[in-house]
């Protein structure tokens, strides 16, 4: 028998395999959605938290920090910052507020964003909400993030 390895079979495997695994991916996505309510801390999703997410986004915090490990690696992880700051939104607010306008000579420093009191409260509440998301093995591995 001569060697059989046809382009049409390779093509069928590409189309068939792609559809198959995409459907499987959708099935696993469905299974994930069943599970989200147990983990995603949606009970804490109040309007102020939603506003906090907007503050978080419109100041591009993810451009320096990671949140649950995703983002930039220039500044500390914030998924557990609420716990690291002693379970205190006040401490978070005080830190953001205290950033010097001109930075710290020779060192990395978070910009002074001049947030209003409401925005400060909102972003702190958002970080508190984020710390309540139940990640597998309670990631990050320790309080340092």
């Amino acid at each position, binding site marked *: *028998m001569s*060697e*059989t*390895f*046809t382009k049409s079979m390779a093509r069928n495997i590409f189309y068939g395999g792609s559809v*198959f695994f995409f459907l499987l991916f959708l*099935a696993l996505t469905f*299974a994930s959605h069943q*599970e989200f309510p147990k983990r995603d801390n949606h009970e804490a999703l109040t309007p102020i938290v939603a506003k906090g997410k907007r503050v978080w986004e419109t100041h591009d915090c993810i451009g320096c920090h990671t949140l649950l490990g995703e983002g930039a690696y220039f500044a500390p992880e914030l998924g557990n910052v609420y716990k690291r700051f002693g379970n205190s939104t006040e401490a978070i607010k005080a830190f953001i507020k205290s950033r010097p306008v001109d930075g710290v000579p020779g060192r990395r420093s978070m910009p002074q964003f001049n947030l209003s009191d409401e925005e400060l409260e909102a972003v702190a509440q958002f970080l508190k909400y984020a710390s309540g998301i139940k990640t597998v093995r309670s990631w990050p591995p320790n309080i340092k993030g």
Partner: protein
Amino acid sequence: MTEKNRQPPGDLAIWIFICAELGVFAVFFAAYAFTRAQHVELFNRYQQTLNSNYALINTLALITSSYFVVRAVAAIRDDHQRSCARWLGAAIAMGGVFLVVKSMEYHHHFSAGVTLSTNTFYMFYLSLTFFHFMHVLMGMVILAAVALKARRGGYSASAYTGVETGASYWHMVDLVWIILFPLVYVMR
């Protein structure tokens, strides 16, 4: 005995795919075994909630359908196109039996509230069997396409690579279950 081939039956492309699939299952099997070794009690306890009678029927169904597929290939080698299509139809029917029985089993577990996240045992049980379930479905689609083409006279004793290709995939689905059945249902 006829001269040996350098290549397995069917299109080589399907064998590359079969190797990839077997690889995934192999890793899944090993992962099951090693995870079980860390949670022996949990696995032994929840394994008893499985009904091995269902699995027996399913194993018999898959082996039988694999046998029918062998007969289909034999038929087309003798240029019996209709007979080839009939054997394939019978194989697909046995695949259908598998799907029905497996669905009944799933129904039993789902109505008991079991999900992928219930515990590690059920995570593996559902992942492995559902992944395989999808393969049975996929194999049936492939066999159906081959059967249709055979009915229309698309294969002959001199050109039946397509039949062998579909057959090889289907045997792979059977092969995986041959390991899955004792591993998940019987070994403890």
